[in-house]
């Protein structure tokens, strides 16, 4: 490549990055701006790109509604409990598939488990409602959502953990057996620490799915339990939607996953690259 070509490629890359930045950054920017506007300003034909009057009270306002805080707490309970359960089951199943269920059966079983994620969720929306309605705890409960989200998160956790366990050298466990560990202790003391970064990544993916899920939560719950995605539509009042409150509340709801990601970023990157970078 000539020097001119190098320069051209660099310019193109920068131009692409600039467009990409606008594309991803603008919605966030407009969310923040809208969340600071008063109601009168949000429904104009020509939108303003900076609030004419600042109204940070929107943030305080959303929590004036007692349902808002509770919906965040509900979401936290559902997504955290579901993540713990998905990770627990997925790790054990993934280990079994990676180490013990081998050959044709193992491959097909693993694929079958993952294929649960491939059908359109809408297909089971109504059946799930009747299914949970028949259980002692009913549809409108923590348990129903926690268990329901396992349908989506456990296959993902199982499959990813299986890949991570396959990449964890088997010799380490065998060395531990020879050194006198039982398979159980070898698993917890030797193998599990190796896949720990992977577990963190899986936990993040599961948690974010459960945190943001709307479709099932909206149909199954809404009174006793109300997760925040179900709460957001309540900012629509008869004739108009209070976009400023919707945006303010959404930004608050974004905080937990963003903070989690920043804190656990180190593990996330290592976990997600575990299958790629060997050595």
């Amino acid at each position: 490549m000539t020097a001119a070509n190098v320069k051209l490629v660099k310019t193109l890359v920068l131009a692409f990055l600039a467009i990409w930045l606008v594309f991803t950054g603008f919605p966030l920017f407009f969310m923040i701006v809208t969340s600071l506007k008063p109601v009168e300003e949000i429904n104009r034909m020509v939108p303003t790109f900076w609030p004419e009057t600042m109204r940070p009270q929107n943030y305080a306002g959303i929590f004036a509604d007692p349902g808002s805080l509770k919906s965040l707490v509900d979401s936290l309970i559902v997504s955290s409990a579901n993540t713990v359960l998905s990770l627990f089951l997925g790790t054990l199943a993934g280990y079994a598939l990676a180490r013990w269920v081998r050959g044709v059966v193992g491959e097909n079983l693993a694929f079958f488990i993952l294929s649960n994620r491939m059908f359109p969720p809408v297909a089971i929306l109504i059946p799930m409602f009747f299914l949970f309605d028949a259980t002692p705890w009913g549809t409108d409960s923590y348990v129903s959502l926690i268990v329901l989200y396992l349908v989506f998160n456990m296959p993902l956790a199982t499959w990813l953990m299986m890949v991570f366990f396959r990449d964890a050298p088997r010799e380490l466990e065998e060395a531990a057996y020879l050194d006198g560990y039982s398979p159980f202790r070898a698993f917890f003391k030797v193998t599990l620490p190796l896949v720990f970064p992977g577990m963190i990544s899986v936990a993040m993916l599961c948690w974010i799915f459960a945190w943001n899920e709307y479709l099932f939560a909206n149909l199954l719950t809404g009174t006793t339990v109300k997760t925040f995605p179900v709460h957001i539509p309540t900012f629509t009042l008869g004739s108009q939607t209070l976009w400023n409150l919707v945006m303010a509340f959404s930004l608050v709801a974004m905080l937990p996953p963003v903070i989690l990601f920043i804190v656990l970023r180190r593990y996330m990157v290592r976990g997600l690259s575990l299958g790629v970078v060997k050595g």
Partner: protein
Amino acid sequence: MARVTLDTVNKIYPSRHGPVHAVQDLDITIEDGEFVAVLGPSGCGKTSTLRMIVGLETITGGTIRFDDRPVNELTPEQRNVAMAFETYALYPNFTIAENLGFPLEVRGVDRKAREAEVLRVARLLRIEDILGHKPAHLSGGQQQRVSLGRALIRDPAVFILDEVMSHLDAHLKLQMLFELKRIHQSMGKTMVYVTHDQMEALALADRVAVMSNARLQQFGTRDELYHAPANRFVADFIGEPPTNFFDAEVTETAGEIALAVPGTDLAFTTSPARVAALRNRGGKRAIVGIRPQNLFITPLDDAGSVTATVALNEYLGEQSILTFDDKGVSFRALAPPDADAKTGATVAVRYRPADVMVFDTDTEALVA
């Protein structure tokens, strides 16, 4: 320490394409304190054999005994075996000292005694200065020594070393071979060393078990393997460069038996014992094997000789490899670097009849 006996041991793996017979009717007795190498090309069943001895693989048929106790049903821990792995298998989140002390910790040895033992083994392997490091920060040679150390820190019935040198560079390998030999001599423990490298096997072991195609080909000292290989495979596998083989016809003129290579002027005579064995066996054909080291272009007493043309003279520094050609049949010899053998020259190649090995054409087994 223990004597390890393998009694018609078999290993069959199920697979998609039907059962795979990885180890077939293996009979080996490893004496107490002996250093035995299991040598063979990859896929010959040597690693399966070792994993069965250790207890990481079930035994499909036959019995493995430590002294007189069958161990087929025992776990690796109950068998009390120590193993060093090809990939070292150091616990990445432990320090070197913790890695070394791990087998003792599991057995409930108290901290003081453990630290003393770790230090003793570290001294033996000369790794005292890296005890506080994590495995990832170590060079390959250091990791390898730590993995040996973790095996050596216990007092097991038998040590198993699985291809432990295969990731070391040539220089370090020589050094480690020497160290390992020293360690074995100072400890006098039963060791089984698995490798595909004949140089390592011959350098280290008291006896070498050569395996190929799931079967034991020969179990013997390096002299036996070198001078009386049980069959063509062993003759070919042991020795570098590999043995020259010729398909020969057994001819008899005036009571003298000779082995002539059809279509060429090459004809070999062999030792009286082998001549007698050839007479007993009868048959018109045989395979002649002769090592490149046993062919000379310098004068030699009571030698036979053949004449051939030098096709290639590869100068390797300390010696040259000469490739000869005689009417399309080629063979190689080792010669001193100053040997007078220009490409295209026709020279007399001499040999001692006792060095001419004869194998059966059909069974490929050594004749006499």
